[in-house]
Structures are given as C-alpha cells and as structure tokens.
C-alpha cells in the first residue's frame, strides 16, 4: 500500500507556524505552489511528480519566483528559497545526483529537494523545512546532580544502599570510590 504523502497545504501550514505569511496559488508551470514570505525570505514550494522533468520544473518555477520577488524594493532577491517535494523516491544514483545538482545550484534561489515526505508526520516535515524555520524551543537540558542520578540508578540496579552510600560519599569527598 502506497504511503500517503504530505500535501502542499501541510507544507504551507508548517511554514506558517514558522512565522511565514503563506499563500497557495496557481503557477503556470505547475498546477499550484505555496508562496511563503517573511521579512527575510521568500519561499516557494512545489511538488515534483516526475524525476525526468524535475530540473526543468524547478527552473521554470524559479523564474516565476524570481520575477515575483524582484518587484522593488527587492532586497529579498538574496533570500529566495525553493522547496521541491518530489512525490516518488529516487530510482537510483542518477536521481540522487540530480538532487545534488539542483541543490548545488544556488543562483537566484537556494533549493531544497525533499523526497516522499509522509503525510501527517509533523516532525519529518519540520525537519525537512528546518533551514527555513526559526530555532526551536528545545527543552533545555539542566545541569543535573550526577551523584544523585548515580544513586538513583544504582538503587534501580539493586546495589545495596549501604554500598552505594559509602561509595558515593567517599567519591564526593575524595574523588575515589571506597567499598565497605
């Protein structure tokens, strides 16, 4: 059974959550595209159905996006990004090389080729779009008390309290473990 894939709407929603103003609009070279805009970037997202026409599709979309963003004041012409969501997996090294070639071409727009993003998996989608999104609020890791953590773990590992206490106490005082 074929895996259901993420839609342009989902991609647009993820970008919208990342602070972009998002619009789904038709383009002449494809059926539709997502345009996402922030003060610093203009992102265009399209779907790619055919590996053989992928390069041409991207170039045509890039041309239209460049034209759109070149309206004065055009400070964001340095900050154009194209996300291509290819709906079928690469068939082999040729397709993989094609991905690299498309992404390596940074003229006019920075390009990201993403392949077969699954539908409904927000983590995967955000990872695919991470270069475009703000820094996440990752739960900060606390400085923890290593000896307290050790005591807890040793208890779970069935080390007698008397042994653990003596070892941890001496280690805390001298940096050396002693065994009673």
């Amino acid at each position, binding site marked *: 059974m074929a895996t259901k894939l993420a839609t342009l709407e989902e991609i647009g929603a993820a970008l919208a959550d990342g602070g972009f103003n998002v619009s789904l609009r038709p383009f002449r070279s494809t059926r539709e595209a997502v*345009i996402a805009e922030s003060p*610093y970037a203009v992102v265009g997202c399209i779907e790619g159905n055919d590996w053989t026409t992928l390069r041409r599709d991207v170039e045509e979309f890039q041309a239209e996006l460049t034209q759109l963003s070149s309206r004065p004041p055009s400070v964001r012409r340095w900050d154009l990004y194209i996300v291509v969501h290819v709906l079928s997996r690469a068939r082999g090294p040729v397709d993989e090389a094609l991905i690299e070639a498309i992404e390596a071409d940074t003229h006019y727009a920075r390009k990201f080729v993403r392949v077969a993003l699954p539908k409904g998996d927000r983590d995967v989608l955000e990872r695919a779009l991470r270069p475009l999104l703000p820094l996440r609020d990752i739960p900060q890791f606390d400085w923890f008390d*290593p000896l307290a953590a*050790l005591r807890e773990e040793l208890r779970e*590992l069935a080390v007698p309290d008397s042994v653990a206490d003596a070892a941890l106490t001496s280690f805390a005082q001298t940096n050396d473990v002693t065994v009673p």
Partner: protein
Amino acid sequence: MPRLVELEIEAFRGVGKALTFDLDAEAILLRGDNGLGKTTVVDAVSWLLCGELPQLSERLKGLRKGDDPIVNRYSEGPARARLAIREGDNVWSFQRRGTNASSALDGSRNGALVDDPAHALAQIFGHQDHAAFSNAVQTWGILRQDAVRAALDAGAALHERLARVIGLERVTRFAESATRVAKELTRERSRVRAELAAAQQADSQIRETVRELREATSELSQQNIFATLQRQRGELPDGIDLDVSKLTDAAALTDVGREVGSLVDAAQRILSARVTLEGLTEDQQANLAQASSALAEAQRQLNEITQRSPLMVQLATSALQLLGPTCPVCQQPIDLNSVRRHLDELLQNSEEDRRGEAQARDAVHQAQQQVAATEQSTARLRAAQAEAHDAAASLGRLVLTDGLLQLSGFWLDPGHASELMDAMTQLRDGLRIAFSQLPEAAQARHASAEVAADATASEVVRLRLELKDLDARCQRAATLDKAAHAAARRIVDAALARIGPSFAEVFDRLAPHPTFTVLRARQDIYYGKNQIVPEVYDPERNVAANPLAVYSEGQLNVVALSYFLGLALNARDGALPFMFLDDPLQAMDVLSVLGFSDLCRRIREQRQLIVTTHDRRFADVLLRKLAPRDPDTRTLVIEFSAWTREGPEVAESSVQPSIIEPLLREA
C-alpha cells in the same frame, strides 16, 4: 536582556594604542584578513569577563614567565580592556588591567563604583558566582574555532567535552573509580590469598616440627622418666597411687607436679592450723572468766581506796587546825596530846592508803592485760579451727578420683596431713627429678616450636578472617563496578537522548552530506570505558558511520559546529545574552556557508551575535543576511584593513535597514 554596548582595548595583545569599538547592535561582523586583530577583540572580551585566557596560558607552558601573551610588546602596559554593558536603565562599565599572571577588575554602575565587580558582573548575566559565569562564557559565550574543531580530533575528545558540558564527567569518573577499586581489591585479595597459603604452609611445617620434637623428647626421656616414676610409685604409702603409664612428656609431668604441689600446700595449711590449736588452752572460756573476775576485784579495791582516802585526810587536817584545851563544840576540857596523837595517826594511815591505791591501779592494769591476752588467744583458736576446717575441705577438693594421682579416703582425714605432706613432698621431689631427666635442649626446642606454632596458627586465623572480609568486599566491589558502568551507560544514554535534538537543530540547517543526513552522538563502551562518539546516519539505507571516517574536512567542521552551537543554544546555564563566533567557517562549501548564514540570522533573533571572519565570501553573505529589516535593529560592521605597531586599523559602519514591501497580503 543585557547587551554589550562598547569595548575599549589598550596595550592588549595586538592592540597598542587605545581602540574603542561600538558593540551596540544585535549583530556585529568583524571582517578582515588573518592577523589583523579580530581575535584580539574576542580575547579582550574573554579576558575582561573571565580574568584569564586559558588557551594562551596553555600555549605558554614551558616558556619563560616573562613571555606575557597579553601585554602588547609596543606599549608600556599594563594591558587594559573596558566593556560597557547596558541592562535596562543601567549602564555598567567594567575594566580589567594587568598581565596574564595578574589582573584586577573594577566596575561601576551609572558612574558609581561597585564593591564586588566580579560578583556584579556575574549577576548581570544571571549567575550567582563569577567562577560559574566564567565557565559559561568560555563554554557557551565564546566559541573559538580551534576549540570547536579539537572536539573531533582525538578519540575521546568529544566524550570529554560533552561529559564536562552536561555534567557526565563525574558519572564516568565514578564508574572508572569503581573499576579501579574493584581491581585493587582483587589484587589485595590475591596478595592475602598468597599470604594465607604461605602461612598455612608455615603452620603445617611448624606443627610437623612440634610433633617431631614431641616424639623425640618423648622417646629420649621416656625410659628414664618411667624408671624414676616407678621408683616413686613404689615408695608411695598405701592408699596413694600414681598412673605412670601416662606420664610420658613434659606437659604431663608438669600437670601432675602441679597437682602434687597443691596437695603439699593443703597439708601444710592443715599442719600449721594444728600447731596453732595445740598452743592454745582448750578452756579459754574459763581462763577468760577468771581473768575478768580478778580484774573486777582489783577494780573494787581501787575504788574503795580512792573514795575513802581524801575524806579522812580532809577531816584530820581541819581538826588539827582547831585543836585547843577545850572542845570547840561542847566546851569540855580535852586531852590535847592524846587527840593530837590520834589525828597524826589518821594522817599517817592516809599516806598508806595512797600507796595502796597505786598498788591497786597496777593490779587493775595487770588484770586488764590478762583479759585482753585471753581474748586474743580465744580469737586465734577460732581462726585456727576455721583454717583447719578449710584446709581439710580443700584437700578433699584437690584429690581427683579420675586424675593421674589417686588417694584413698584415708588420706583425706586432716589427722593424716603430716604423713600426706611427707609423701607428697617426696613424690614432688621425684617428679622434679623425672622432669630434670628430660633433655634440656629438647625442652627448649619444644617450647620454642610451640610458641612458633601458636604464632602461625594466629596468623592463619587472622589471614582467613581478612580473606573472608576481602571476599565480601570484592563481591560488593564487583557488583558496584558492574552497576556503576551500567548506571553511567543509562545516564549517558538519557543525556544523549535529551541533547540529540540540539545537535540536529544546527546540523539539519547546514546539511553537509547528501546521504549521511542525520547527526547524533552515540555511546560506545570501549574496554569498559564509556565513550561518546560522533555518528552520522543514512536513514534511507540504515547505515551509520563515524563522520571522521566518511566526511570531508569542511563537513567535519559542520559536525563540530553542530555539536557546539547545539549545546550552546540549549544549555540553560549557557543562556548568555551574547555569543561570539570567532572565525567559525573553515573549509565549508557554499551550501554550508549559506546555511550557516541563515543560522546566524536565527541566532541573532535570540541573542547578541558577534562574528569574526576572514572569509570575504561568508562576510558578504552574512552582511546581506543580517541586514536589518526595521529601523530599531542594528547591524554593525567592523572592518579590519591593516595592522601597524600601534594596532589594527579599523573602520566601523552600520548596515542600513532594508525596508521591504510585502509580496503577499497579510492573512
């Protein structure tokens, strides 16, 4: 949020003449070729905030103390750095002066000096003490490229860095220490085992020696002893017998000798008591009564004399004074000569009474002494009777029916104590003769061997106890060692799971490799040591690899930067309001440069960002990326164009805001 607003440097490393830098911006880019002084600015901030530059001190190890890496060679010195910090309505100013070896910090708030500038500095940035603040600055606030890259250079470097950063150093040290103590205890147990084996062997040998000596002593003396004892036995009176068959060695002779000695003592006591009894009169009670009666009679006579004599003398003396031709009472004529003669006789008799009184007193004293002597005799008699009874009782206790020496009931009668003492004294002398017939050297060797055997036996017991204790400790240590490593593994795994997303946050933006697209840190237990190793992963093919093995130099720099920035952005203690990135890009490709530039823009949203770079391409891209989009945001560029003996030539400029026109209507 506090912001660094101005930095002044003088006589510090590459800066001679005082230079002031405007830092009052969200982003500051220091650009210029290598060697023009960009890193000096970063070092000056680090020195001012922390009071030291560990990387320079490390570089100077082994050099002469005069080679100060901080004081500028073309200046008088001392080095000086001043930093202004704006915090709300307050403007703080901190200045450090000194050398690498010694420097002093002073500080002021709105122009007023503060008492403890180091503490105040730490507090501004949310730290309670300056040491913790200094650690945070050097770990999170200022990222030097050499330190970043070094994290991947050595096998355990990443582990050490991460372990220190997230507090796992103590965990792994604990596990290593547990292993060490387990090994030490095992070694100690082996040593004690060897000692015990040696002691057991020595004990076995000494016991064999004792046995041999005992047999030799026994063989040597048995014939002599037997003959002597048989003679003694033959001379024993009826009712006393000695089992000579068991008296074959010194120990047995000593035992029976002790028993005989006790009998002699008991008999002697009986005899002494009897002598005492014989010296005392049997009718002590009658003697006592007679002496008491004599004492009473003497006392009575003494009393009579002492009462009579003073009265007669007094009357006769008064009458002589009143004596005349007539009676002073009835006036009848009296015979004066006759009366005078009578009174003189009375006075003469009184003189005799005085002499009688002295004699009576002597008699009383003698009678008292007689009574006391009689009482003492009575007491001695009673004591002697008790002693005789006790000695007789002890004699009965001493004679054991199942011992080597056997006595009939006849000999338990105290009346035969004298004969018993004679017989036992004779027997004791015979035993002494028999004992003396044991070879003296054999006795000494035997005694010495016995002492040695006791000592080795004690040592064996001691070592067995020690080994038992060590066995238990080794078992506990092995349990602890195993559990400590398992605990360390679990704690490290949990920590890696927590910090993994931090690495991805940076790495996914730079995406340096087409297939190994996931960066993580993996725990590797190598020879019992917990290591954290870098790992990249191809999710399509489920293949993992160490980036050191599959990545290019530029890609490795991305990995190192990902670890560092990821941690710096998410460590709570590292939440400083500024971040210095000193020449972060090394050998990166265009895509990574673009990705890193975008990342810088995102970092700038969270904290004040100061980036130095010698890479013109990166500098250009970064300037475009960091160009403000509104008038309230500032981006500064400090251009380092040349360096002279006075210091770098710099030019500051502000990037003008680029106002944008939205393409899309706001939703």
